[in-house]
């Protein structure tokens, strides 16, 4: 290199700056996936890129990944779970349509993964006539998680939706079934009994988004059983 000593020093400082700046930027932008091993991270990033390309927000997959990391699952297990989640999200969207919200997609994907038939999702969607699917899907997944057979749970939710059930009706069904199960009833019996109690509200026509409670929900603390 040529030049005076001060010029050489300046060039050296510029090169050092070039080296330091990226390192600083990289440390500030550390990926939340950095705790994964390289191969798992690569696969997860591929899933998220693929999701983004087809219009599914990759945040859902990122959240599932972070959940797995936080729960101490090994990388291979996280990849397996995220792959299933991605497949379920794609299936949910192809069933419910591209206009479905990410919350509904997540709920629908969960229902599919818990064993609810895809045809049931399509039928439920058709009965809601533009109303939000969120609450019925949440209750459907909860029922299946508590041991109600997926086909029974799907039929009950679809029938209630056809008879104009509101979100509060679905929430009431969930609460009643849970109470009966805790009282010793079998999940299927509890669902059968509670779903018969719903008198019907006529065909759903008007838009019925997530309905808030009319009053402040009671502060009912949970307890470790």
């Amino acid at each position: 290199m040529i030049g005076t000593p001060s010029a050489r020093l300046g060039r050296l400082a510029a090169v050092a700056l070039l080296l330091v700046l990226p390192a600083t930027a990289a440390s500030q932008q550390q990926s939340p996936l950095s705790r994964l091993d390289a191969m798992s991270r690569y696969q997860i990033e591929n899933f998220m890129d693929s999701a983004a390309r087809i219009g599914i927000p990759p945040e859902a997959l990122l959240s599932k990944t972070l959940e797995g990391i936080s729960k101490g699952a090994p990388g291979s297990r996280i990849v397996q779970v995220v792959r299933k989640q991605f497949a379920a999200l794609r299936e949910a969207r192809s069933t419910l349509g591209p206009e479905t919200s990410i919350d509904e997609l997540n709920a629908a994907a969960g229902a599919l993964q818990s064993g609810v038939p895809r045809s049931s999702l399509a039928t439920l969607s058709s009965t809601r006539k533009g109303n939000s699917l969120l609450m019925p899907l949440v209750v459907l997944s909860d029922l299946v998680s508590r041991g109600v057979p997926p086909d029974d749970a799907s039929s009950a939710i679809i029938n209630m939706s056809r008879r104009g059930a509101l979100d509060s009706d679905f929430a009431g069904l969930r609460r009643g079934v849970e109470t009966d199960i805790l009282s010793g009833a079998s999940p299927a019996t509890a669902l059968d009994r509670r779903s018969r109690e719903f008198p019907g509200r006529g065909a759903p026509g008007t838009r019925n988004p997530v309905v808030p409670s009319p009053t402040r929900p009671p502060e009912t603390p949970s307890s470790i059983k």
Partner: protein
Amino acid sequence: MPDDDKLDPTVATIAMLARQPATLSAEARARIMLAVQAETLRGRPGRPGRRFAWFLEPRAVRLSPLGSLALAAGLVGVGLAMGLVSRARTLLAPAGDVTMTAGAPALPGTTPAGVPVVPTGATAAQVKFVLVAPQARQVTVVGDFNRWNPSAHPMERTPTGGTWTVTVPLEAGRHEYSFVVDGQHWMPDPAAPLAPDDGFGVANSVLLVSGSES
């Protein structure tokens, strides 16, 4: 050059004619000179050309091996940083336009026992999570709203007993969460709907926060 005496007579005649000076008329001479002048002007760099001539002119650059190594490393670093920034924007961008509104009315909420909907008139609701765990030494709530970070929202024990609470601002939508007791025991909220099997062996709970359209 061979002597003309040794050449074929025909070739010698041609050579002799070729050596004679060409005579041009004044008009032809002027046309030729104009054409030459125009060609010279076209090839000469104009004002912009002169301005960038230094950049366009090829030149040799001398670098020591250490200097070239540092330059290459710097370029790689710049590319890496740009890639990281671009990737972070792609992966971490919010799904929609919902944002946490500072100073939004803090509507009271709680983890409800059966009705998993917390109303809010703004884009964020203050949701109070409650867990009764008298034997616990430490309880935190983790969920998609805090990126499943167990240290983000530690719960506080109430003065009266074993009830643990924390209030968290949540955006409208569906949220999955769980409690972590004593840093290692994950458990769903017994008073909330269960999320489907998460594949990690521990079920989560579901909470719905309604949007401003309600």
